[in-house]
């Protein structure tokens, strides 16, 4: 039977990347203090799953590499090694290398072999050279080198002939779990010289033979000085699916000591705690086979923790998904199912009502329709929630970033995160990452001072960066705050003047000055540093956030710090829109961009330099954008501004008046992508289907204002649009 393994690859990669994230955040978490055993266990398990998965799918480089990490982590877990700074850094770097390897494997690219080898070397060095490159038997170094030697000495059997006696009796259903005893035995053979005795005792008569059942058992003797862990690891995946025993060679009877057996379940120091004497219990009369009814407790414990993960893996693997999958909390799905149930009930109720309808039943019909509407709305909301993921998906990379940057720049920084469970749209998760990275880099590079500078300013040596997310009034607010030196108001102003962004006469308040950093071509970094001088300006940050329908604000106090506040819409799949008419076409303007809509009186109109139209709104002169011109409408309706409506919108801190023919109505619209089958169009953010089935385009206000400025620049090279 041939199974296309590729369909499971995606799940493997997804879970592996998740696992790497877990390892990384775990490593960062306990760098400062004493390691928490549960955290180490979590890291170890994550590494172990990656190794197992990689092995299963034949990514041997990855599994070999992960094996080294796992060995190191295993030692930490068993308390044989302290996770010092050096080990932690090597592990972190290994996570990076592993991530690259996984990416390369996923994309079918060639991994960066020298880098991998270098990292292997580093890992192996930490392990005191005890583990060589390919898990091949290592003749003597196991007993050499201080920390590991102790560790291994306890594990490697002390008999004259080092090695292990293994009893392996698969349960009948083993094949159905996808395991192959032959593979395990072959891998054992790689550890050293292996004697294999197959026990055919379980084999039924030929006519009773069920070919898909496993009937064989093996007694194996491994002549190799390998740690117990390594042997057990090979059987990890068949645990619970076989009877398994392990005994050091040359020690024929260790008395089973129940107190010892339960002594240290977490570390499992003793090679074999139970043996044939009492566990076999005479159940199966096979003298040569040491069987264990139950595996040692530690394994059981481990297994229980891993089981849900594996089950999920299988469940996910059974249902291969496309390149863009999402993991959904079962609660959300249950809610959804309940709602569909309600909907079905309402629908059948209405169906019955409709079968012999009379006017007496009108009230019930109305009631039923109201119910239908409510359920539909609830259903819509819950479906939308499926796209929502906790923002921790994005936040989780920042501890590492801060840790690395702080070290690189010689600054002491603590990152405080809150509201990681705030749910945001999947698209936001994907797109907000880069802007946030940029802002945090900025805070660390330019905001937080060096320790000596901080001390001199009377501040604690350690700088703090706060990253938070919360829901507020139908929006998601993300805040990045630092307690650094704040923005250099005068430097910004000076730079802006040098760049011609403002004239010397312009009198700007603090907020207007801070907003200048979002202007294209503005960068205050005095020297281009590796950290934030990547040719990407804050203008790109702002543009990316605007593309998500959000906005960003800066607030800064000299000497006290800077705060960036990002406001994003809750969901990107639905928006509150104002329908407008331009000529005979209908467009949707996002309500969030609209300040107000007014009818302009002729005396409010004005002209700038004979071309740019403006109107006066209270004390401000706003540019007028003729929508029929920008949208190139073939049959423009109204051409006199005072005959139509001016919709005042705000974009990028400035206001504009959009001249349209008419306002139609406000409605929630479901956003459909134009790009799915077509392409991006300037000034259009998407499309929606109206009640009558026709398509209306949704305007992208920043894009529209850009189009309008371009159009006017074509005629008049310079028009000041600032009030």
């Amino acid at each position: 039977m041939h199974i296309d393994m590729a369909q499971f690859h995606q799940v493997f990669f997804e879970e592996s990347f998740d696992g790497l994230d877990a390892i990384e955040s775990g490593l960062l978490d306990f760098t400062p203090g004493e390691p928490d055993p549960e955290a180490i266990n979590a890291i170890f398990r994550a590494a172990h799953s990656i190794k197992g998965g990689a092995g299963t799918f034949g990514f041997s480089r990855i599994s070999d590499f992960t094996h080294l990490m796992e060995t190191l982590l295993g030692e930490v877990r068993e308390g044989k090694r302290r996770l010092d700074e050096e080990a932690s850094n090597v592990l972190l770097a290994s996570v990076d290398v592993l991530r690259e390897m996984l990416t390369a494997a996923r994309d079918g690219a060639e991994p960066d072999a020298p880098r991998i080898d270098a990292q292997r070397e580093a890992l192996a060095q930490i392990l005191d050279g005890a583990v060589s490159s390919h898990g091949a038997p290592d003749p003597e170094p196991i007993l050499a080198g201080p920390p590991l030697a102790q560790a291994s000495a306890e594990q490697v059997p002390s008999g004259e002939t080092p090695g292990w006696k293994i009893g392996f009796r698969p349960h009948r259903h083993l094949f159905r779990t996808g395991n192959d005893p032959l593979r395990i035995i072959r891998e054992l053979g790689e550890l050293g010289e292996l004697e294999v005795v197959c026990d055919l005792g379980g084999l039924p008569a030929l006519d009773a033979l069920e070919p898909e059942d496993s009937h064989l058992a093996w007694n194996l003797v491994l002549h190799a000085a390998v740690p117990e862990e390594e042997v057990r690891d090979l059987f990890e995946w068949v645990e619970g699916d076989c009877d398994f025993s392990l005994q050091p060679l040359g020690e024929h009877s260790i008395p089973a000591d129940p107190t010892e057996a339960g002594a240290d379940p977490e570390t499992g120091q003793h090679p074999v705690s139970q043996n044939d004497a009492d566990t076999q219990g005479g159940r199966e009369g096979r003298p040569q086979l040491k069987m264990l009814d139950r595996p040692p407790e530690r394994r059981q414990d481990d297994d229980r923790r891993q089981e849900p993960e594996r089950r999920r893996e299988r469940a996910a693997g059974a249902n291969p998904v496309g390149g863009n999958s999402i993991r959904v909390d079962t609660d959300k799905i249950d809610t959804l199912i309940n709602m569909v149930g309600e909907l079905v009930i309402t629908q059948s109720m209405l169906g019955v009502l409709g079968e012999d309808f009379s006017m007496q039943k009108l009230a019930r019909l109305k009631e039923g329709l109201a119910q239908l509407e409510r359920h539909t709305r609830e259903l819509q909301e819950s479906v939308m929630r499926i796209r929502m993921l906790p923002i921790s998906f994005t936040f989780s990379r920042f501890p590492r970033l801060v840790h690395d940057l702080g070290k690189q720049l010689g600054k002491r920084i603590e990152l405080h995160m809150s509201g990681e469970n705030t749910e945001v749209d999947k698209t936001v998760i994907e797109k907000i990452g880069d802007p946030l990275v940029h802002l945090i880099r900025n805070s660390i590079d330019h905001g937080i001072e060096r320790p000596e500078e901080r001390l001199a300013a009377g501040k604690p040596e350690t700088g703090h960066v706060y990253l938070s997310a919360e829901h507020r009034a139908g929006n998601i607010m993300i805040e990045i705050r630092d307690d650094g030196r704040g923005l250099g108001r005068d430097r910004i102003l000076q730079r802006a003047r040098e760049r011609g962004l403002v004239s010397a006469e312009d009198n700007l308040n603090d907020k207007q000055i801070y907003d200048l950093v979002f202007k294209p071509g503005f960068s205050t970094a005095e020297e281009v540093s590796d950290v934030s001088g990547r040719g990407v300006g804050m203008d790109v940050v702002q543009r990316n956030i605007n593309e998500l329908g959000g906005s960003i604000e800066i607030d800064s106090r000299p000497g006290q710090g800077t705060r960036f506040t990002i406001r994003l819409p809750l969901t990107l799949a639905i928006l509150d829109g104002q329908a407008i008419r331009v000529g005979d076409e209908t467009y949707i303007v996002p309500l969030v961009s609209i300040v107000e809509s007014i009818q302009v009186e002729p005396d409010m109109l004005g002209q700038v330099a004979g071309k740019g139209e403006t109107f006066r709104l209270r004390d401000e002169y706003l540019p007028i954008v003729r929508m029929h011109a920008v949208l190139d409408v073939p049959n423009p309706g109204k051409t006199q501004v005072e005959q139509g409506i001016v919709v005042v919108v705000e974009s990028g801190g400035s206001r504009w008046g959009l001249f349209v023919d008419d306002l139609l109505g406000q409605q929630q619209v479901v956003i459909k992508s134009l790009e799915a089958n077509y392409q991006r169009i300037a000034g259009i953010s998407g499309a929606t289907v109206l009640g009558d089935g026709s398509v209306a385009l949704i305007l992208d206000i920043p894009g529209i204002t850009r189009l309008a400025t371009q159009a006017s620049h074509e005629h008049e090279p310079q028009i000041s649009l600032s009030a």
Partner: protein
Amino acid sequence: MHHGSAAGIEAQEPMADEQGSQYLTFLLNGEQYGVSILRVQEIRAWEAATRVPNTPAHMCGVVNLRGNIVPVYDLRRWFGLAALEYTRETVVIIVRTGSSADARSMGLVVESVSDVLALQDEQIGPTPRFDHSVPTQYLQGLATLEHGMLMLLDLDALARSNSDEGEPEAASPRA
């Protein structure tokens, strides 16, 4: 380069005969054109599309295809022929382009649909460089029929050219 040749399509979807494929044929300016039937999603009567601003004239607009927004192109205009009034006979062929991983739909406005023909691969020859209505880069081959010839459209080439020339802005900015 990814060319949606007849053999290529057949390899993806082994539906047609061993060495042949079926083609939906239609009329354009009195000439016969064909597209692989495996690429055809559906045929609909013309209905008004929503115009998309600042797009080329052959882009009629977008329509709602069961919740998906699908662009519709006027093939006559695309190939530089005189525009015709849309009538009741005017049909829109919705076709699928691109690989299965990156499939897109587009609608093509044609005068009328004529037939479904099975062609053997050996009946399809290369496109000679001579004068016909359609630019040769959009053709994937030419088939000789009893009553004339059939030009097979390369839908992927159409889709590609469309995204090349229609790109209104530089690629979206990256942080």
